[in-house]
């Protein structure tokens, strides 16, 4: 049917075009939302360092604390005041495999129980498999509380 072929083509284009528009306009926002954790990675905010015992905000030896608003399961931070009163905040996450490290005060070093990684009191990797020092978070003091820069969510 020669005169019907053009109409047929046109209708097939309508069918395929509609399907394409509906799926694309649903899937593209879907992928955008799916990638939200990657797309919003840059945003940073100030987070308060929360201690189980509020007096520990003045401690001159490392105390394990968590960032306000972070999940219970998120790795904590080690915080102390330096000799000049300035805060020192280190991530508790081992740079090797991500286990939480422990502060061994009597040996003046951090120890990772997973693969026996060792960091000194400045967070420098001095033994075992860790390839890098513990991450140091930029910290400031406001009204006696320690705040660090953390990535948003």
């Amino acid at each position, binding site marked *: 049917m020669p005169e019907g072929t053009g109409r047929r083509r046109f209708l097939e284009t*309508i*069918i395929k075009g509609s399907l394409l528009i509906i799926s694309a*306009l*649903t899937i593209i926002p*879907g992928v955008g939302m*799916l990638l939200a954790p990657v797309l919003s990675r840059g945003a940073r905010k100030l987070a308060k360092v929360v201690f189980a015992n509020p007096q520990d905000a003045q401690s001159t030896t490392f105390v394990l604390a968590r960032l306000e608003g972070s999940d219970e399961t998120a790795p904590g931070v080690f915080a102390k005041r330096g000799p000049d009163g300035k805060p020192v905040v280190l991530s508790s996450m081992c740079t090797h495999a991500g286990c939480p490290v422990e502060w061994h005060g009597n040996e003046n070093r951090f120890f990772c129980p997973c693969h026996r990684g060792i960091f000194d009191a400045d967070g420098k990797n001095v033994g075992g498999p860790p390839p890098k020092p513990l991450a140091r978070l930029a910290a400031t003091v406001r009204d006696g509380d320690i705040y660090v820069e953390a990535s948003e969510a």
Partner: protein
Amino acid sequence: MIHLDATGGWLEDRLHLRTVAARILSGSVDPRWAWLRTTGMVCLMLVLIECITGPILGLYYTPSPTAAYKDILAIEQNPFGRFLRGMHHWSSAALILLTVFTVARMFFGAEYKGRRDVVWIVSVIFLQVVLFFQISGHAMPWDTNAVSTVTVEAGITNNVWVAGPEIKRLILGGSTTGAVTLARWYGVHALLLPLSLVGAIGLPLLLHRLRGDLRDSWDSRESSASGPHHTTEHYYPFHMAREMLAAIGVFAIMAGLALFAKTPLEKEATAANLSGYVARSEWYVLPMHAATLLPPFNNPAFEPLATVVGPGALFTVLLLLPFLDRNPERRLSKRRFAAACGVFTLASVFGLYGFALVKERRQAVHETSSAGSSGLVAAAVDAILVEQGKSVYSMQGCGNCHTIGGAGGKVGPDLTKAGSLHPDRQWQIDHLIKPGSKVAGSTMPAYGQLKKEELQALAEYMISLK
């Protein structure tokens, strides 16, 4: 004729895609009333939209009373999330309207007769599934509206004869609306219903179409039954193009609503927001609510006739219709009894709908819920207050001095039976503000600096300790 195979025959060899597509798209249709027959495909496209948007939203959603509402707020913060939530919401509403329309069309067009009876049965089940999707999905944001609606729904089932309280417990997962309720409704909405969609609707429809040439069979039958021979046209691409144009039109409306209309979200379901809050009934249950306002259904003893028995009977009759109506006639003029039943049902539904609109919606729900669920709303509010009180208790370090259930300090008295000793709310609040005024010589610090809501929550928690 259909070009799907861009892989040099590999897909065709392994999956028979071209054969399957040709089978599905084969057959011809009666071109009369053709635009009215596009709604089935539009529903399919809306289901597709729900199936894409739902799982993405699910990735950013925690089915827990403390997290759900905040998750929805976060989704609304993301422009993509806002659009997806809007699409998910508005498409679900359109699905109900179009499914009801499709079932009504199939009824009056006698499409449940002959070999397409299975499509009819699947469509009736689909309508039921769509309604369950809507009702369970409505609870997901866990805002004041969601919590009140769930509570009222449970209250309605509580009035069912004999097994009412058991059904209520099944719906709530316990005696009050709480975390377990949300968890099970989420499970129904996101796991059980999608599975039933695949098993009870998608699979039978696909198998039915693969059986081949069914459109031909019923169309030719209809033509011979209705006398003069009508011309037919091929389904693909002629009728399908019509279906897809209708789908893109509906899609444009949905996208417009998602972009420019506010997707409903009320306040967080905290005790303060819930007290005094009256749930308005959603539009898709309005006819049922209207029925419960009319005698004899406004008597709680007869209420289940309108809320459970009536709708249940209607669905059963619809489901079994191909076996109940053995009249071979397809023309409406020769199906007087069926036509009368159909018109009566539609008139009742729309009449009740109009009645509910006239009767002022808020009032309507309040009266419906009074038969047993307003007490439930109060109980739900109390339960939420107790939970908030617990968190105030731990935040304020009350456990440093007091013992509850064996845990805590030894300085203050054991509070395990605090509610039995002082069941009066005001006593508890006054005591917290100024302990010495109620207990002579008390060394407990005053907690007057707490917010009013915190004091109320803490008092409610104390009273709950018995």
